């Protein structure tokens, strides 16, 4: 038994206008100061006010939202009593909006205890709309919530199937002005979602097609979106790819590249998409050396017109294709290129290994590394050695 869940996805030009028909009394927009500065929050506010809703904005979400921020946002919701919550931004504001919403509905919950096991009975007070302003996170189409315990320097992979947004507004107009580095980081995040959603142990027939399409869209359009931000077709396709990949991995799982990337990001503050995608080729090389018959790289390679006469060949071709894309996007392919020194890495290794092992994404890998292997994965990624163990 398993599940497939998706929000109502409104996509394309003028998708934001769909909210003009929204029925309700009060909406709280959860976002960050950058999004406010870009005018996106005002744009959404006008549409919601046009629908007759009273609107407030909570704009204090930081990158990698903390437990404290989530509690502050939940308090703002309790004071304002919205019946709609609008997560507007990249993954951080949307994930934060999900967690704040849960605490608004369930003030008895510990945010670190948000889990997919208990029935939460959400939607007694409000429903959730997600509007992504980057093309990568896919958070608008998943129930995943990533929060950061700043005291423990640890990212927490949380979520409940109930916190999936009711409506996702996938409107490419929000991403036309993304700078190239953000385009690359977030686009590589989408590719990692597509790869891991297709190759983790929770893959299934309902999610596979979404992951395949998303990976192909990224390979076909990310370079164009990065080189020429005014390429409307590339921007649009990448925006769709991110949400499609979200639906794909959101209905299977993320995997080891996320386990490693979450751990790295919490300690060294490497942006999420850059961190998880950096590890992707290393993880492919690691998993293909696991038990024969456990991987499924052939299908992914075949769909992307890469060599695939064997699983090993497919894995090698996929790892190379990711590295080629990273190179074209001028993305770091090693930890050293992220300005992490060997001394830095050694100093933090115990924490990195512990957090990777306890990340909920790690256990969905077709090959789960033990502590020694996790350590070696970080060491190999430091200077870019292909995995040979």
């Amino acid at each position, binding site marked *: 038994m*398993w599940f497939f869940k998706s929000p109502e996805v409104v996509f394309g030009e003028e998708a934001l206008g769909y909210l003009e028909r929204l029925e309700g009394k009060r909406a709280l927009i959860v976002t960050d100061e950058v999004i406010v500065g870009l005018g996106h929050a005002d744009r959404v506010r006008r549409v919601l006010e046009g629908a007759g809703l009273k609107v407030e904005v909570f704009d204090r979400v930081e990158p990698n939202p903390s437990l404290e921020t989530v509690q502050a946002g939940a308090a703002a919701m309790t004071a304002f009593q919205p019946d709609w919550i609008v997560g507007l931004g990249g993954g951080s504001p949307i994930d934060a909006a999900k967690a704040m919403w849960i605490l608004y509905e369930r003030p008895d919950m510990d945010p670190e205890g948000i889990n997919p096991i208990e029935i939460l009975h959400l939607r007694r007070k409000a429903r959730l709309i997600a509007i992504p302003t980057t093309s990568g996170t896919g958070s608008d189409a998943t129930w995943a919530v990533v929060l950061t315990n700043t005291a423990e320097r640890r990212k927490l992979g949380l979520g409940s199937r109930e916190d999936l947004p009711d409506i996702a507004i996938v409107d490419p107009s929000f991403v036309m002005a993304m700078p190239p580095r953000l385009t690359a980081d977030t686009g590589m995040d989408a590719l990692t979602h597509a790869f891991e959603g297709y190759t983790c142990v929770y893959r299934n027939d309902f999610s596979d097609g979404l992951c395949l399409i998303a990976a192909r869209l990224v390979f076909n359009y990310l370079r164009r979106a990065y080189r020429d931000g005014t390429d409307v077709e590339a921007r649009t396709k990448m925006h769709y790819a991110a949400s499609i990949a979200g639906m794909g991995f959101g209905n299977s799982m993320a995997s080891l590249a996320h386990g490693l990337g979450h751990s790295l990001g919490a300690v060294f503050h490497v942006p999420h998409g850059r961190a998880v995608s950096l590890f992707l080729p290393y993880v492919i090389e690691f998993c293909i050396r696991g038990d024969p018959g456990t991987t499924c790289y052939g299908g992914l390679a075949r769909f992307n017109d890469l060599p695939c006469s064997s699983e090993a060949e497919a894995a090698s071709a996929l790892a190379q294709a990711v590295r080629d894309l990273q190179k074209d996007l001028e993305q770091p392919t090693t930890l050293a290129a992220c300005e992490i020194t060997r001394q830095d890495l050694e100093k933090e290794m115990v924490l990195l290994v512990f957090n990777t092992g306890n990340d*909920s994404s790690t*256990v969905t890998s077709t090959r789960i590394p033990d502590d020694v292997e996790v350590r070696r994965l970080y060491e190999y990624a430091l200077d870019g050695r292909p995995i040979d163990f």
Partner: protein
Amino acid sequence: MTFKFPSDEWIKALMEELNRSPAYAEAAATWEGDFYFLADIPGADKPAMLYMDLWHGKCREAFLVTDESAKTPAFRMSATLDVWKKVLAKKLDPIQGLMTGQLKLKGNMAMVMKSVKASKELVEACTRVPTEYAA
């Protein structure tokens, strides 16, 4: 030698398995919390109940429970015997079992969500106990 599940012998065999597992000792080094494991047996008027006291990477005590009020454990995990069979045979991923409601868990979920590796090693140890079933 095999151990009948659920029984006092089986849970004590699991205790021994855990206490000789360096992987569990390391993964659960900070874990503090005892469990009731409940199995609904067809035809029985009440579930079979096993107790484990898990503390800092070791199992301090384990036994078949005859009086439910004997302990007030931090966690209770329950399932039908058929579901336990699938978990112990590695035919059902316990996380998937929990997410789909086939396995039910009550307790401090924040602790559980932060202890993925200890949970995995606990299940791995369960699958290493040679097991036979009453029904």
